[in-house]
């Protein structure tokens, strides 16, 4: 086996020698996770709003459920969707298993609770009067919602970034639902798992580096936003 430093060097070489396969894998990761977050965010934030400002029976229970779902293992999400999407499952006719769509669905299921729970805490910290004032001043509901979201935008961004960080680094659901198909559903985490099992540590590390840099930037941004726009 290569020494760690050698594997590390090789990984840098791989990344910057324009190894098209690695960049394709990176592209798939971004496409799937970005699509998932785009689809999940609007309904999730709306749910968060209803949970914070709505008054209906079962509201507290729902909040607890979403908080619990925060820690659901990705493989459980993967397995559940696998059973649902398999030809033998209720949605089998759609033939979605082992497609990028299945991966997107898995990642939506994973990031939705994060968006709701973190969106909920962000909205809870908001001043109720923002909503009330906007409504009193004659703003329509969507308009008032917009004003409110603007008010707590830092918290919402934080939720978005945390959710993105979770799904782009997630391996369990992607492996089960996508099937790790080359050029199609092989993303960064499943490729790392495969390369590691083949003993190709340099490629694993190269992809790990990309993830690390990405998640690090996301976290940096997160801290920046939590400090409401200050770096210190």
């Amino acid at each position: 086996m290569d020494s760690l430093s050698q594997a590390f060097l090789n990984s840098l070489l791989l990344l910057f020698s324009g190894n098209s396969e690695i960049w394709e894998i990176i592209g798939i990761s971004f496409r799937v996770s970005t699509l998932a977050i785009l689809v999940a965010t609007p309904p999730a934030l709306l749910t968060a709003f209803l949970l914070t400002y709505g008054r209906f029976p079962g509201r507290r229970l729902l909040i607890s459920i979403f908080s619990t779902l925060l820690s659901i293992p990705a493989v459980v999400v993967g397995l559940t969707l696998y059973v649902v999407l398999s030809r033998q499952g209720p949605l089998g006719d759609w033939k979605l298993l082992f497609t990028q769509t299945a991966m997107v669905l898995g990642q939506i299921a994973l990031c939705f609770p994060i968006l709701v729970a973190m969106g909920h805490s962000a909205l809870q910290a908001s001043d109720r009067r923002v909503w009330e004032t906007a409504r009193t001043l004659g703003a329509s509901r969507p308009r008032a919602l917009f004003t409110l979201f603007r008010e707590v935008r830092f918290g919402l961004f934080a939720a978005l970034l945390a959710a993105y960080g979770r799904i782009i680094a997630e391996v369990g659901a992607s492996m089960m639902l996508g099937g790790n198909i080359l050029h199609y559903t092989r993303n960064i985490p499943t490729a790392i798992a495969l390369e590691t099992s083949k003993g190709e540590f340099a490629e694993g590390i190269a992809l790990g580096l990309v993830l690390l840099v990405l998640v690090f930037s996301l976290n940096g941004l997160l801290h920046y936003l939590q400090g409401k726009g200050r770096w210190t």
Partner: protein
Amino acid sequence: MLRILPTLTLAWLLCTSSLTFAGEPANPGTIRLATTTSTENSGLLRYLLPDFEAQSGYQVHVIAVGTGKALRMGQDGDVDLVLVHAPQAEQNFVQAGYGIDRQGVMYNDFVIVGPTADPAAVHAANSALAALARIASAKAPFVSRGDDSGTHKKELALWKQADIEPADSWYREAGQGMGKVLQIAGEMDAYTLTDRGTWLALQDKSPLQLLSEGDPQLFNPYGIIAVNPERYPDINYKGARALIGWITSPQGQSRIGDFRVGDNRLFTPSATAPPMAEKNIK
């Protein structure tokens, strides 16, 4: 701010609706092949399939899992065909009506690898069963695939034939693919049973050594089976037939025979060879 709301909603709807199409699930140009980790980890399929794809215009989606899971995917209609290595399980699969058109494709063999120090003196055993008996009586650590793969099925059958119940603490079930299990065995100084293909592909990176080989018991044939279109009429049976036809054709077979890792030929084509020749491998 509010003026962009319709635009945003439209963008969101576009994203969401793209989900239904992103998968191209019913694309007749794709073939879904469930296969074993050994054909994928050894690099064979990545060497073979581009040729087939270029000639046929099909695109092959390879899902590499253990043989047990691959057959299950075929049974559930989640793939179009399977390429596996577990003759008994394959026979059951065809008999149950889950698959048709089974063809032999190639073979290699299993080998027993272990630590260089060889505490159980496996290298001195004259058969695979004797080798396993030595490992068991020395209580030397042995890593099992433990994942219902073809290799796992073979290993369990061998233990049974040797009349040994491998359940003690020296016997570890990893539940992982072949490459991973070789790494685990390497780290633990343990013995394991592996297909020769994966072993040859990984031996340079492994501290383990080949200790027992050549027993006819360790013969490892690979078969390809189309999922029965009568069970799933909309499955890509045509594509499956095309792939089976190509891989068993003289051209596909000679490509398999040409595949080398280092200087080693990993798989021996067997689709055109007389069945008896399959039995005499060294």
